[in-house]
């Protein structure tokens, strides 16, 4: 240790693991939670709060113009029309906000403060979403960041960056890829990636 609150001993992983295990044991001992609580919550989260929900919402928006309008106007109400799993505290569906890409507008979601993410529709964020450099650069120079990840947008396409917070957890309805007019819903589902619902990719066949 060389001083300063942000220096860690070499065994910081072990120390964190011990801290978390101790917290959970103490909370169980005090009767705050049971020995099954954390596993139950994780199991629900991991099985129900997945990008599959987001993909269903996007395909519905692509195939039903009225739903497409409703999902942007009042996201929680529109999402409630679909048969999706119930939310959880901390992952509340009431804070979901959809934004739709159009020929002239591309949307990108970030969280500059703490990596808020629309869990109920996209699951957990990829690790790079939480990276401070990504968060700062995406806010400052989104066009450049998008070009680097392969989303080259025409100069006249406006890029809107949406900063998530506890009150608004944004996700993107990407544009329906051209040439998919005859696709079934299942085929369309394959076009919707998590990245496309974050705005760091366009919808389309997974390469």
């Amino acid at each position, binding site marked *: 240790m060389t001083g300063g609150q942000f220096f860690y001993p070499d065994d910081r992983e072990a120390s964190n*693991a011990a801290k978390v295990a101790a917290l959970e044991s103490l909370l169980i001992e005090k009767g705050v939670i049971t020995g099954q609580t954390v596993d139950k919550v994780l199991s629900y989260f991991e099985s129900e709060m997945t990008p599959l929900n987001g993909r269903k919402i996007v395909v519905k928006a692509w195939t039903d113009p009225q739903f497409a309008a409703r999902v942007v106007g009042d996201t929680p109400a529109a999402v409630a029309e679909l048969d999706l799993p119930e939310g959880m505290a901390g992952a509340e569906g009431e804070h979901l906000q959809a934004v739709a890409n159009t020929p002239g507008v591309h949307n990108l979601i970030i969280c500059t403060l703490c990596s808020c993410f629309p869990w109920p529709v996209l699951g957990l964020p990829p690790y790079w979403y939480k990276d401070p450099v990504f968060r700062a650069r995406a806010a400052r120079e989104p066009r450049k960041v998008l070009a680097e990840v392969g989303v080259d947008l025409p100069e006249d396409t406006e890029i809107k960056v949406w900063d998530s917070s506890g009150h608004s957890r944004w996700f993107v309805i990407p544009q329906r890829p051209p040439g998919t007019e005859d696709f079934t819903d299942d085929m369309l589902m394959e076009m919707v990636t998590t990245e496309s619902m974050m705005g760091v990719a366009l919808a389309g066949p997974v390469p």
Partner: protein
Amino acid sequence: MRLHETCTTDQAAPQFDFEWQRRAFGLALALSEFGHYDWEDFQQNLIQSIGDWEHAPEGERGDWHYFDHWVAALQKVIADHHLLIAPVPTDAGDHAVRE
């Protein structure tokens, strides 16, 4: 995908590198889910911890480890709500019962 030198996106990468990160995530969510605090309270601590790191001089703050902040926020919210000192009773469904 490549965002910058140290941040290459990899869609196949697991969301948690270690089981303790997964449990820390589950614990924070579980305590909120069962009514021991509002998610906002945890989130404000997380924002504060990350903000402190971002505003600290580079030479003094150590490497970026997202889950260090998560654990710090969790410890603080548990302390702030006296969960280990004065836990509130829970009902048959394990939810906190507020008087």
